[in-house]
């Protein structure tokens, strides 16, 4: 459960990125966030990641009130989230399996669990045969799937992806979106996808939230652009 209540975000330089935002997302929902450049989409994601703090209003994710969350609790909150970025952010000097296990090691999971879980996750994203490969040996779509496997590694309830297909050509984009939908449906995870790609949004017929100038100007189920 995600609840934005009258959330505003003003950056230190005075830019108002979000202005009195109200948005509710239930567990297990799939939501596209769309909008022009500078509309505030990435800011919304940064607030959810608690990379940035809300300037005013209240933002709840499950039992966490992010406007009041103290710094030392942030890591435990973030274990509920999986993040995917446009630029993948993989370690070039680590194999596919190591990139995934890194996320588990980072929160101190025992080696035994890591050994068991990494192949299972790679299976979910269809990369079970590439475990030992390095990112440079993979296509863009495969690299993004590694990033998704890493996001899934600690079994988060919420996946947030900021333009996950921004660096991919249309076929691979479709593949990644399909994977995100599948993760949403079969694993019952909440998935938030920020994107610019009209045809994908129209194709999947999911909930679409449109931002403009820090405001929600549209919130509906189905195609947004057509």
């Amino acid at each position: 459960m995600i609840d934005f209540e009258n959330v505003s975000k003003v950056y230190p330089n005075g830019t108002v990125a979000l202005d009195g935002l109200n948005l509710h997302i239930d567990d297990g929902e799939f939501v596209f966030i769309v909008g022009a450049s500078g509309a505030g989409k990435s800011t919304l994601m940064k607030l959810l990641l608690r990379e940035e703090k809300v300037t005013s209003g209240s933002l709840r994710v499950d039992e966490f009130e992010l406007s009041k969350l103290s710094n030392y609790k942030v890591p435990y909150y973030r274990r509920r989230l999986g993040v995917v970025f446009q630029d993948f952010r993989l370690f070039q000097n680590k194999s596919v399996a190591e990139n995934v296990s890194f996320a588990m090691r980072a929160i101190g999971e025992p080696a035994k669990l890591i050994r068991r879980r990494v192949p299972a996750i790679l299976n979910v994203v269809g990369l079970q045969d590439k475990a030992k490969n390095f990112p440079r040996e993979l296509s863009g779509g495969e690299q993004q799937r590694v990033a998704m496997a890493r996001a899934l590694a600690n079994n988060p309830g919420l996946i947030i992806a900021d333009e996950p297909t921004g660096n991919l050509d249309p076929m691979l984009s479709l593949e990644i979106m399909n994977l995100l939908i599948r993760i949403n449906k079969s694993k019952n995870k909440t998935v938030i996808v920020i994107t610019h790609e009209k045809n994908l949004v129209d194709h999947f017929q999911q909930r679409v939230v449109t931002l403009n100038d820090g405001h929600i100007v549209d919130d509906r189920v189905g195609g947004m652009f057509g």
Partner: protein
Amino acid sequence: MRRYSLTYLIGQSFKGLWRNGVMSVASILVLLSCLIVMGTFGLIIYNLNDNLASLGDLNSITVFIDMEKTDEEIQSIGESISRLSNVKNVEYISKAEAFERQKAIYEEEYPYFFQGVDETIYPASYVITCDDNAHFEELRLELEKMKDQGVSKVRYLADAAETLESIKNGVIYIFTWFMAILFFVSLFVIINTIKLAVSYRKQEISIMRYVGATNWFIMLPFIFEGILIGIISSVSAFFIQMYLYGFIESSFLAEYNIRLVHILPFDNVKYIVLGAFLAIGIFTGIVGSSISLRKNLKA
């Protein structure tokens, strides 16, 4: 903490040290030099202190008694000297003893001088050592006052101990400043080494944050790296110090035959030296890495 995490942390800190090659070696060398300079000063002071203690009798005062005093009178003068404050020891040297001592020293060179004379030409004397060299002067003045009771002359050696004392203070003064400077240089180099290690792992740190690694988990490998620098530096410094000390003790002193000073065995202090090195080395490592991580500590 889980055992796995601990091995992970230690593994990471070793890796970091290795990846940071040149900087790690630089910080180890600087810290090591700092420790050796400190150890050398410390050992000099330690030896000076000991030598000062044995040089203490340089600060003795010899009181000569009027020639015509009787044995009883001499004895009562001795008793009143013993009653003065700050008197540690009073040694009586009779006329006969004085005569024998002088004869032993000079007879060979001036044999005719001792012909036809006996002990009566020498005055009896008391050799007084004081408890506290700082109040040496007061005791000397007290003894000077006894001239109307049969003391003919108060003789004392130049304030050798005082000179040595001030040398020691000078050494300590230089040592303190040198130490402070070296400590800050070590700290500075370690701070930069760890900063480099952090920047090397910027991407890792950022991903670790996203997946919910705690600050401690992110920072500990760097702190461990600092500690590792401290441990490697202090243990190597210890062995170099031990070698240096042995070298000075055996070859240098033997060659120049410096008899005036004696050198204490390193074994007496080796655990103290090692302990101090480790304590300072590890402390510097922790402080250095903590300082360079300070701004990374926010979520």
